[in-house]
């Protein structure tokens, strides 16, 4: 298990996914059974196809949460109810400081001076997302995630009609970006990433009104629609990597159960980060049951799309109790 965690961290940083070298006894048994009883397996698969529960439950909940969080920022200012003041980079929730980890990192690197409020707010947010799943921030809060999801739908539609073709980048680019932005911030003394961060730009545009900066968002979306699916979130955004690191130890995750899986791959098709779902490929899962990697944004699209319930949300320790 420990080796697997380390492995999943390396995959998050950009290494290619490798076929596992060792399988647990139980996993091996299930893999074998699926191969031996092929007819039975196919029948069960058809059954699951026909009767499986699919829907948009988690997507709808997530969109509602994302819109609600951003709306709370907006109304706190516009109606002056002061519940959630500030923007996504830094805010105050009924008086408590909350500071985005990546923005805090940038300010500390640029300014080279750390304030108590900054530490308090950063620690609060760290604990919050440690509890909630790290990259949960991306899919459940970040406003760019939502618009990028809509652009992604368009991209897939155009790709289906062969109007556009998708291009992939090296997943390690994001790690390089993370390092480069940190380095540039340290060297120049400016919060360089903030000038291009769609998260900050969109959050501020929603709260304080639109501006030229939205042009950059448009450029990014066009790039994603016509050239590379979800390019910013997949290959660039250092915020995602920062929160991914938080998610390594988080108890909230999507959990995979090999026994229920028919290896149809629908989950991988909808996933923002399909490398975390490598285990669902036939014969790949090293464990009978396992959480999927820290790079997972816990968006739940795979949970929604899986016809046989092989992927589910899980809270470490809690789910067993329930």
């Amino acid at each position, binding site marked *: 298990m420990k080796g697997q965690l380390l492995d999943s961290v390396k995959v998050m940083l950009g290494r290619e996914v490798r076929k596992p070298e060792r399988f647990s006894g139980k996993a091996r048994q299930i893999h074998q059974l699926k191969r031996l009883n092929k007819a039975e397996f196919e029948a069960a698969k058809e059954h699951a196809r026909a009767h499986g529960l699919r829907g948009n439950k988690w997507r709808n909940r997530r969109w509602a949460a994302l819109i609600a969080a951003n709306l709370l920022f907006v109304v706190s200012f516009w109606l002056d109810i002061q519940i959630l*003041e*500030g*923007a996504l980079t830094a805010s105050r929730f009924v008086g408590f400081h909350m500071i985005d980890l990546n923005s805090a990192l940038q300010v500390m690197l640029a300014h080279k001076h750390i*304030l108590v409020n900054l530490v308090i707010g950063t620690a609060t947010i760290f604990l919050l997302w440690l509890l909630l799943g790290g990259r949960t921030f991306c899919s459940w809060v970040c406003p760019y995630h939502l618009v990028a999801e809509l652009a992604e739908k368009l991209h897939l539609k155009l790709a289906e009609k062969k109007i556009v073709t*998708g291009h992939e980048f090296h997943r390690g680019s994001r790690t390089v*970006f993370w390092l480069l932005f940190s380095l540039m911030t340290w060297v120049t003394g400016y919060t360089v990433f903030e000038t291009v961060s769609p998260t900050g730009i969109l959050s501020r545009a929603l709260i304080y009104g639109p501006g*030229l900066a939205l042009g950059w968002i448009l450029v990014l979306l066009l790039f994603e629609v016509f050239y590379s699916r979800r390019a910013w979130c997949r290959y660039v955004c250092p915020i995602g990597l920062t929160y991914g690191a938080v998610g390594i130890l988080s108890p909230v995750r999507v959990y995979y159960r090999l026994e229920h899986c028919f290896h149809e791959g629908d989950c991988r098709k909808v996933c923002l980060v399909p490398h975390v779902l490598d285990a669902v490929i036939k014969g790949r899962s090293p464990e009978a049951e396992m959480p999927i990697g820290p790079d997972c944004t816990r968006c739940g699209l795979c949970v929604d799309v899986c016809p046989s319930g092989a992927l589910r949300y899980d809270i470490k320790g809690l789910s067993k109790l329930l």
Partner: protein
Amino acid sequence: MGEADKSVPEQAAGAPAKKPPLSQARRQAARRRFIRSALLATGVIGFSLLGYLPVVYAKRPRLRPPGALDEKDFLASCIKCGQCVQVCPVRAIRLADLDEGFGVGVPYIDAREQACDFSCDAVQCVLACPTGALVYRKPVFMPVREGARLAKPPILRAKEKDPEPTLEIRERMGVAKLVRPEACLAMQGKGFKGQARGADFKGRMRYMDVDRWKPIPVREHPYNVDLCDLCVRECPIQGAISLEPAEPGAGSSRMTPVVHEPCVGCGVCEMICPVEPTAIAVEERAVW
């Protein structure tokens, strides 16, 4: 070697991948992907460094909110959250756009449109700032530019009778300057009657004789003065500006506004000046 034998592109994830692709083709694909990634990195990093341009060309020096660190430190430490914008009772603070490069999302004040009149009394924006980009007192290791520090804590005229009449800030935002003396009404010995900035002006100000805690639109507070002294009359800081005779000798009614050392550079004089364009303006980050 470690390559996955079924790592088909996601668009074709469901399709059978029986024939393993040629390794040469794969190597070429990997090379192309690497070049693409390098171009992506160049593009994004290049664009983010365009933020330097406005800095290099020193485009648009901005009046920063009270208590702001020196420009470079200010840009570095501001987390671009806008909490200062939210607490300001007159909405004097705005956030800069992308054309200001590294200043994107950083607060500034357009004094002519809406100056900071300290109607919050406690300099709320400083209290709201989570990162210390706006501070009452700079950390000791930060240099203070000569003449930026105020000789004495500024006394807020609105609080004159309070037990603690001073503002907490220690450094000025800038200094007011009579930039177009020829346009100044007092210099011409003229009075002023009516709305200081016209009927369409949206700026607001706190008038102590109206309501201490509720700023009102300037257009709702018309003036009628024999000799224009709006900048002196509305200056929120004690002893920062006064009207002095424009020329020696009695008999002349021509006066000139004279700015004194306590000026913090808040820009109220610039906002209220009734001539177009303004005769008096704040020089951002100027020192005494």
